[in-house]
Structures are given as C-alpha cells and as structure tokens.
C-alpha cells in the first residue's frame, strides 16, 4: 500500500478486498491491455457509507477486463496524482465535508481540467454536492462548490433516506440514499437518472443525480457500482480509452449475482 504521498504521516485507508500494492504501477510486461489510474478522493473523510466499495469494484473489474488498475488515494494536503483516468468520491459527514473544502479548492483547477478532457468521474452524495455550484446551509450561508455540475443544494432539516430505483442510460440502477441536502438542477443540466422509487435530488421533480459529459453525480450509496455493473463498465470503458488511446476491449463478465440482486430490489420497490 502506498504511504508515499501521505501528509502528516497519515497512511492510506484500507479498501476491503483490494490487494496490497494496488497503488503501485505494474511493470510494462504485467500491464495487460493497459494501465488505468483510479483516484479516490478523500477516502477517510468522505467515504463512510461503504463508498470505498465503488473503488474496489472498479479495480476488480478493471483486472477482470484484462487491464491493470493503479489505485491512488488523495488525502487533504496531499499531492494530487500526476496521472488520473478515473476519479471517484463518496459521501461523508458534515464534519468530513468541512475538512476537505480547503484541499478541494487547491485541486479545483486540476479537477476542472480533467473533467473538460473527458475524464470519467463518479461523485456520490457529499462529493456530488461539492462538485455543484454551491451548498446553501440551513441558516442561509452559501458555500461555493467547484461548479463542474450545474446543480445547487439547499440544506434541509429533514433527511431523505431510503432505497432507490432509477431509470438511467445504463438501465435500471438501484441504491440507497441518505442525504439532508435538496438539490436542484440548473436549466439544461441533465440528471443521472429519473426516479422510479425513492426521492432523488429533491423529492419533487423526479430527477436523481446529474451528468455533464463524463462526470456523474448521484446520491446513491449501496454502494452504487457492485449491483449496477453496466454503469461500472461504462466508467471503466471511458477510462480505458483515455488511458490507452484505443477503444475499450472488454472481456465477458459473469454478472448473474449482481443482476439478481438488482432485479430483486427493482421488483420489491417499484409498484406497478
């Protein structure tokens, strides 16, 4: 596990299931179809609801498709990795969100440049909010976001909690939402999906998440990727093309268990 880029001597967090050394760049002979650099933003502060599982899922599937992942963890005050083909972020507590704001400002230009270059990003819950224009707290304070997604979030006293089913470009997507922020899309901003069951961005307009180019924001934990492998592979495909300059060359996957887990949730939750 990489300890090199750690500020204040704080080691990387352990991502359950990931082998030791997954932060190391493999030798050219062992790289398979190509090396894909995955960056997980603030895993300690902003991944308390199982969102590390997204990174584990991406790394494991990158290997199954015959590529080699390099899993970077970016911590507050640390050096942002030189190469990034896929950027992932999760949800945290309000205290965690406060802790990453200063660092996010430092790496804002880099993230905007990556987004403009078509780098796929998956930002869940708190990090989704921080990628938007602003977060307005309950007492009216405006905290500016990165503005990569044209969304604005209003803090609420009431939390939106429960299982969710979405209809998306990647088929039905299932997950679990747990947020107090109510998010509104700007005019022309595309959502990630439409709500079939659950509350979504704000509980009123039927939208969930946001998508601009290859940047995806969503409230869905679960985590979102294991049970929705079509979406996971779409992100990997985009990253693979960026990393290799060639079209994605997927390998056949057995996703029977994931498909069963997902379709059971859809059947339970969507009333016909």
């Amino acid at each position, binding site marked *: 596990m990489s300890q090199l880029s750690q500020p*204040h001597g*704080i080691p990387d*967090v*352990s991502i*359950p*299931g990931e082998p030791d050394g997954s932060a190391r760049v493999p030798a050219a002979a062992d790289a398979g179809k190509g090396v894909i650099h995955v960056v997980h933003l603030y895993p*300690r*502060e902003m991944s*308390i*609801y*199982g*969102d*590390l*599982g997204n990174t*584990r*899922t991406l790394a*494991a599937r990158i290997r199954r498709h015959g590529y080699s992942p390099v899993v970077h963890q970016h911590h507050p005050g640390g050096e942002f990795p030189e190469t990034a083909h896929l950027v992932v972020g999760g949800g945290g*507590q*309000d*205290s*965690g969100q406060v*802790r990453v704001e200063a660092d996010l400002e430092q790496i804002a230009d880099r993230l905007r440049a990556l987004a403009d270059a078509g780098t796929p990003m998956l930002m869940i819950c708190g990090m989704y909010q921080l990628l938007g224009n602003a977060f307005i707290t309950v007492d009216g304070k405006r905290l500016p976001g990165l503005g990569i997604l044209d969304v604005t979030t209003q803090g609420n006293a009431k*939390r939106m*909690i*429960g*299982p969710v089913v979405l209809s998306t470009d990647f088929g039905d997507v299932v997950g*679990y939402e*747990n947020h*107090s922020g109510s998010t509104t899309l700007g005019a022309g901003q595309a959502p990630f999906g439409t709500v079939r069951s659950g509350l979504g961005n704000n509980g009123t307009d039927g939208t969930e998440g946001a998508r601009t180019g290859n940047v995806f924001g969503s409230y869905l*934990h*679960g*985590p979102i990727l*294991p*049970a929705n492998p079509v979406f996971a592979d779409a992100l990997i495909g985009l990253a693979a093309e960026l990393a290799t300059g060639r079209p994605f060359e997927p390998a056949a996957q057995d996703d029977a*268990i*994931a498909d*069963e*887990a997902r379709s*059971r949730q859809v059947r339970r939750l969507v009333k016909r």
Partner: protein
Amino acid sequence: MLRTTAAVVAGKAARAASRLRGGGSALPGLVAERIDPGFLAHALADVPGGIVVVTGTNGKTTTTKMLVAVLRAHGRRVFSNPTGSNFTRGVISSMLGELPVRGRLRADMAVLELDEAHALKFAAAVQPTHALLLNVARDQLDRFAEIDHTAKLLASLAEQTTVGVVLNLDDSFVSRIRDRVADGVAVHYFGVDASIADRLPELQEQDVRFDDDFVAPVAGPDDGLLRPVDERTFEVVFGLGAADGVSESAPDRRNVGPLELQQRGLAAMINATAAAATARMLLGDAFDPEAAAEALRAVTPPFGRGEVVVVDGQPLELVLVKNPAGFTVALGTYGSTPVATMIAINDNYADGRDVSWLYDVSFESLRTRGVTITSGVRGYDMALRLQYDDVPVAEVQTELDPALDAFLAQHPDEPKRIFCTYTAMMALRRTLAARYDLPDIGEEAS
C-alpha cells in the same frame, strides 16, 4: 396510580399473549407506555442504589449482562432488561414481568441497556444516576444519520447523568465527553493496557478529527485497564496510572482476575473491563475483585452473540452482526477457526435498511473455507459482496428456513456458524428453538 395499575395490567396481558406466540419483546411495553406515559418514572421511583444506563454502538447487551452479574454477585437485587430489546418500550416490557400491579419496582439497582436514541428518551422520563458509554461506530446510519450525531446523543445523556459516568478511554468520540458532565459528577474510564493498544484499530471507528486540540485522558487510580495474559486470559488492572511502582511479581489485590470468559474475543474482554470499572464505581468500598472475577467467569454469551446451539451433537454458533466494526470483530474472533459458514442479511428497520456497510468489512478471512450459503432478503447482495472479496459462495437461498435446512444437511458432522442480522437471527432462532433445546429469548439460562 389507577392509570399505572391499568398500564401494568394491560402490559402484563400483552406480555403473556406475546410470549405464547413466542416473540415480540417490545409490544407489551408499547401497550403500557401508551396507557401511562409516566410509567417509567413511577416504576423506578423506589430504586435506591442507582439507575444505570449502558449505551454505545457495540457490546451493550454483553456488557449489561456482565455488569448485572457482577452486581448480583455482591448481593444486590438488580433489575435489568436482558433481552437486547433496547428501546424504552423493551425496558418496560421486561419490567412487566417483575412489577407488582402497584407499579413500583422492588430492586436495589436498575441497569438498563438502551439504544443511543432511546437512552435520551429514557433520560427525559427518568434521570439516570450513572451512565456507561461504550463506543461510537457506524451503525444503522439510516436511523442516526451520522456518527457525529450518535456521539452527540451520548454526550447529551452524560450531561443529564447525576452521579457518575464511565467512559471509554480509547474511543475519542466517547472520552471527549468528559468535558460535558455536570459539576460534581464523577468520571471514570475503562480502556486497554498499552501492551495491546495496537489492536484497537480493528475494533473501533477512526476519528477523523485528528487535527483538533483534543488531548486524550490518561488512566487514573479508579480506571480499569484490560491487560491480556494470553489469547483467552486477562486481568482488569486498577490504579495503574497512580502507582507506577506496582511490582509484576506481587499481584495487586485491587485487580480483577486473571480470568477467562466463556465468550471469546478481545471485544468481550473490553466489555468485561467496562463492566468491572462500572461495578467498582457503583459499589465503592464494597467492590470485591474476587467476587467480580468469579461472576464474569460464569457469564454465558447472550443469545445471538456467539450463543451455541447443539444441533445433532454438533455446535452451531449464532453470531449477530449489525455494523462494520461489529462484523469485523466477529470475523476476527470466530473467523480464526474456520468452520462451515452461512450468512443471513435482512434489511428491515431493526437490521438497518441500508446494506452499504457490508463494503466496509473485509471478508478475506472466509476465503479459504468459503461460504456454504447466503440468505435473507439481501442474500444476493451478500453473495455479491463476497464475490468482490473472492470468497466462494456455493448457494444463495433468500428464504431463511430452507437455507438453514440446506446448511445443516450439508454439514451434519462438523461445527457450524451463522452470521446474521437482527431480524434474521430472531427468525432463525425461532426455528431452532422449535427443534432443539435452547432458552426462550428474554429468559436466558443463567
């Protein structure tokens, strides 16, 4: 008074009815609570020796059972709620069995296990004299929403406690609560000896506020520290902070142990340390380390916490799992001896409706032996989780009873283990109770 009597009678009737059906530990309490909202305050009005609330994320049931055993070993009459039904109405339900219809409990002390939110609800009705605050970890975030919120609930309970609090020295979410107790309220700690401090990360939540200016407390003369002797044997050491000169060769008579618990694992040892430190605070000079050790040795694991059911001559362990820290500890405790394994995950309210937390647990210790069957409403999600840790899963059967039958049939001549969430455990236990000899829930064999 009439109202309380009516509440007691109605509650007792509901209790008798629900016991006949074989379950439902909270319903009778709900009935009594509806009829008389002042029920709790009234019932506990004549308990002179202390009203103790035990709360925190993990270990409440085990620690409460241990604390009650130690106090009873000192001759105290103790009322408690041993069912793990840790909402206020669960407390009332267990009271109903012991209450005279006048509605006042006859006991020296009350030791109550309460879930973090219900501990406050309870305190609003009855101010606790003492509180034992165990730990704060991710647990059922769909109910408590955030770890910081849970920590605030515990701090608020400590503020309302009138005589003494016992805090976890090693969990900074809990130890920082020392600054919140009222003037004149005693603060004692339990924790682990420096020799095993390196094992704490496997047990507890990472506190991300590492850069603020909080200085952790240091153990004093009244604080109990866990010092393991070997894998199963340990001592609870008192007075370490004050008397550095305690010699290794002369056993300190203030210490509890060495002793071995019936329940395995470091988490159980820490629970015993917490129970010993709290009993010492409650009993003062009457605390007898010998009696405490004797009582702790005799405590059997609470149901579902490593409880063993003998099935056709072979042990079947039921292990309750409900959050990442708890599942990780359980795998560390039980996974070190790999046996045939089943995992049952439900997502009802009492289980936590969000199963995301399964991705914060590492299942690698199950890789070699594999998992025979996953079950419960989210049985496929569990199988998927194991797939991502490269743990082989032979079968998925979401229905619990057929899964149990298949599991027992496939491993007739060897020890077995089921990791299960709360409602899955209750259902499995009901099925097992109908077939094999095991105590009723709420009436633990003592």
